[in-house]
């Protein structure tokens, strides 16, 4: 465990600090590194918010609605987890690339990056909200309605508070995944520096051009974000279990 | 002696669970470890089985010092409260497990398992899985599994604890009869004094990690070592400065200088027994009468009566402990 995980990760942090904090700061604020980082954070935030809304709606439809083909959709939700990310990128490029049959070309555009990230992070919110929604006691909603609450009030004041910990956990997972993603983005984004190059691709480039310290510096930023997300998740889960 | 436990101490963290516990279990006996939950009885049983290590002290099984032996080398049969059935094996396979581990020939295993399943009345269920059995059946399977390896001692941890009242009573009688048939030294843990009195021939009362008393059911019931044992083994009430069993209180309507004057507060008929609530100098007490006696006395609330312990009673002075 430590041979494969801890020591190598520690080496990344250590290498990034090798020439002091000043150099570290310079390395992550070079125009192209900074552009890649801000794009990654920005796109991940957008993706997280869309997932928060759409993921909850999909989970809701899967649990509360009944229609033909629901079982198939329920299975398909996990496809982005099972599909290799590079294939996911290729698949999206086929529909939303230069030869799109829909006439929508998102290749080499930031919207293409967001699309790829949406694809790979789809299951997170759905799969964290779904079980909570299933466990939710319908008596509670009926009690709320019997006390005179409108359907909207029941949703806002009774259902939503119960779902929020799961929704936020799923969103945090999606955010972390989006920050870390490379495979699905590589093909559709074209990796244009200052425009569509995400942090992981930038690090990749730095490794290929033999700049390990620059790569380590940007990696350290991603590592810190990952750690913060994990800690936030841990806190979220405790908060959620206290309220359950 | 089948089991000798000497000066065993055991703590979980800073909480002492067993304090200087020493007991002897004679070969072929059926012994109950009785006490309130948290009193250390299950821990003692697990120490005997080797599932827990004592901090200090020794455990000798059939003359061999077993203190440092792992459970697999002690040759004890252990029956868990929640059966610990091997869910992925049939009833037959469950019972055969210990014999297969010992690499006995197939034919012998088959014969022995079927014998045991007959003994526990599960011979029709051999090919079923534990999930297809009722609680009582699972417990009997667990018992057959423990007996299959011909253990030197059989240890049962609250064996009927998870069963409903009716099945519990049936299995109790059945365990007693089984023991008379098989004669294996048996120790079982229970918090139910009725169960201990009915089934065991020796009772060890354990509370706060200490042995409070050892004796036959009659001894511990009639001659409790202290207030705690007396209260734990049956109903008690106060008469003056002593504790008495309520069925050892005699009531007479006539005044009697040898007795104490009391006032009847309430008469409750509970089927075959009648509970008479009394007040003596402002102190509440109660007596348990047979229905015929109560009918003869025809007590009314407010009536003044005389009470005294019956000649058979062994009151325990409250100041003594």
């Amino acid at each position, binding site marked *: 465990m430590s041979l494969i*995980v801890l*020591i*190598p*990760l520690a*080496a*990344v942090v250590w290498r990034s600090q090798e020439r002091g904090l000043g150099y570290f700061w310079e390395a992550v604020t070079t125009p192209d590194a900074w552009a890649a980082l801000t794009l990654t954070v920005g796109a991940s935030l957008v993706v997280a918010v869309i997932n928060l809304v*759409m993921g909850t*709606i*999909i989970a809701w439809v899967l649990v509360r609605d009944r229609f033909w083909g629901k079982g198939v*959709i329920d299975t398909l939700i996990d*496809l*982005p987890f*099972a*599909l*290799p*990310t*590079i*294939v996911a990128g*290729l*698949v999206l490029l*086929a529909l*939303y690339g230069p030869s799109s049959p829909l006439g929508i070309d998102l290749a080499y555009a930031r919207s293409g990056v967001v699309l790829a990230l949406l*694809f790979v992070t*789809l299951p997170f919110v759905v799969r964290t909200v779904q079980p909570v929604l299933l466990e939710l006691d319908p008596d509670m909603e009926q009690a709320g309605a019997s006390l005179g609450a409108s359907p909207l009030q029941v949703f806002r004041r009774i259902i939503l508070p119960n779902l929020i910990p799961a929704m936020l956990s799923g969103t945090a997972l999606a955010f*972390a995944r989006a920050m*870390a*993603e*490379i*495979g699905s983005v*590589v*093909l559709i984004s074209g990796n244009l520096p200052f425009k569509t190059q995400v942090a*992981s691709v930038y*690090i990749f480039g730095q*490794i290929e051009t033999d700049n*390990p310290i620059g790569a380590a510096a940007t*990696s350290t930023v*991603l590592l810190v974000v*990952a*750690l913060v*997300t*994990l800690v936030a998740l*841990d806190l979220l889960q405790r908060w959620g279990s206290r309220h359950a | 002696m089948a089991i000798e436990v000497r000066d065993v101490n055991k703590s979980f963290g800073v909480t002492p669970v067993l304090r200087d516990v020493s007991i002897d279990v004679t070969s072929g006996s059926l012994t109950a470890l009785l006490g309130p939950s948290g009193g250390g009885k299950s821990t003692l049983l697990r120490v005997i*089985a*080797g*599932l827990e290590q004592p901090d200090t002290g020794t455990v000798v099984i059939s003359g061999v010092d077993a203190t440092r032996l792992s459970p*697999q080398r002690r040759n004890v*049969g*252990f029956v*868990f409260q*929640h059966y*610990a*059935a*091997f*869910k*992925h094996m049939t009833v037959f396979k469950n019972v055969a*497990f210990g014999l297969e*581990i*010992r690499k006995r020939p197939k034919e012998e295993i088959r014969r022995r398992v079927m014998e045991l399943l007959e003994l526990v009345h599960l011979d029709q269920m051999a090919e079923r899985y534990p999930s297809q059995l009722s609680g009582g059946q699972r417990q009997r399977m667990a018992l057959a*599994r*423990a007996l299959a390896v011909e253990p030197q001692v059989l240890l049962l941890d609250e064996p009927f604890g998870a069963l409903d009242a009716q099945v519990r009573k049936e299995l109790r009688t059945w365990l007693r009869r089984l023991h008379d048939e098989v004669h294996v030294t048996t120790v079982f843990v229970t918090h139910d004094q009725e169960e201990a009195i009915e089934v065991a021939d020796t009772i060890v009362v354990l509370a706060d990690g200490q042995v409070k008393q050892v004796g036959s059911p009659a001894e511990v019931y009639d001659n409790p070592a202290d207030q705690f044992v007396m209260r734990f083994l049956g109903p008690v009430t106060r008469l003056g400065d002593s504790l008495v069993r309520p069925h050892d209180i005699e009531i007479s309507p006539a005044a009697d200088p040898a007795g104490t004057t009391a006032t009847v507060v309430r008469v409750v008929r509970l089927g075959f027994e009648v509970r008479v609530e009394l007040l003596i100098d402002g102190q509440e007490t109660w007596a348990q009468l047979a229905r015929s006696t109560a009918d003869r006395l025809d007590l009314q609330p407010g009536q003044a009566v005389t009470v005294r312990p019956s000649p058979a009673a062994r009151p325990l002075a409250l100041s003594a402990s």
Partner: protein
Amino acid sequence: MPKNLIRYALRALAVGYLLFLLVLPVVLIGWRTFANGLGPIFEALSTPQAISAFQVTLVVAFWAVVANTVFGVGAAILLVRHAFPGKRVLNALIDLPMAVSPVVVGLALILVYGKFAAVGGWLETLGVQVIFSVPGMVMAAVFISLPLVVRAVVPVLEELGDEQEQAARTLGAGWWQTFRRITIPGIRWALGYGIVLCLARALGEYGAVAVVSGRLVEQTQTLTLFVEERFQNFDETAAFAAATSLALLSVITLLLTKILRPKD
């Protein structure tokens, strides 16, 4: 009925979103792959380069699964059955690979096991090359799929409890016999589930493997790298063919996990 209206609107929104994000793209790639019949696909996948990619992928995935099965079961037992200092930290660290970018994983391995790093240099003198070769790729695949087996096994092990194991011990079973005859059968479905997930992840890994492999054609090129390289070289037929075979693998994985997933 506004309530029904809302219901239909939500349903349409959810289904539409999934249709355009998930279903149509996947269907389209299948359709494009098979548009010219099976001949070109077969041809594209039987070049030495493609065959080598298949082989490398299988070797890497196989060893990653073996390593993670052993580690995963061991770590799960450690976490559930034993109390030790640092347990909470280990528990948290196991999830770390889920949140770390695969590229960072690759970089981390290069920094320790690369030719110019201390450990890597020492291994090099022993004749073991880790980076730009199979051992490094296995390490990368192990790293990124580390939590899958552990997280699949832990809840089942918790639910199983240790009474069955204790019962086996009192019946005379040794440590290994108890493990093999009681523990393993108890967790077999969860273990299978974890292994399938791990296999899928190892087969489909791109970022970490891309970094540590050096992407040497016919030497360290896995299927995912093959897809990318062929696509960048405008060989769409081969890229689509390989992508479709990977997609088929993942669909099989998906169905397998549906069957294996512990039902409650």
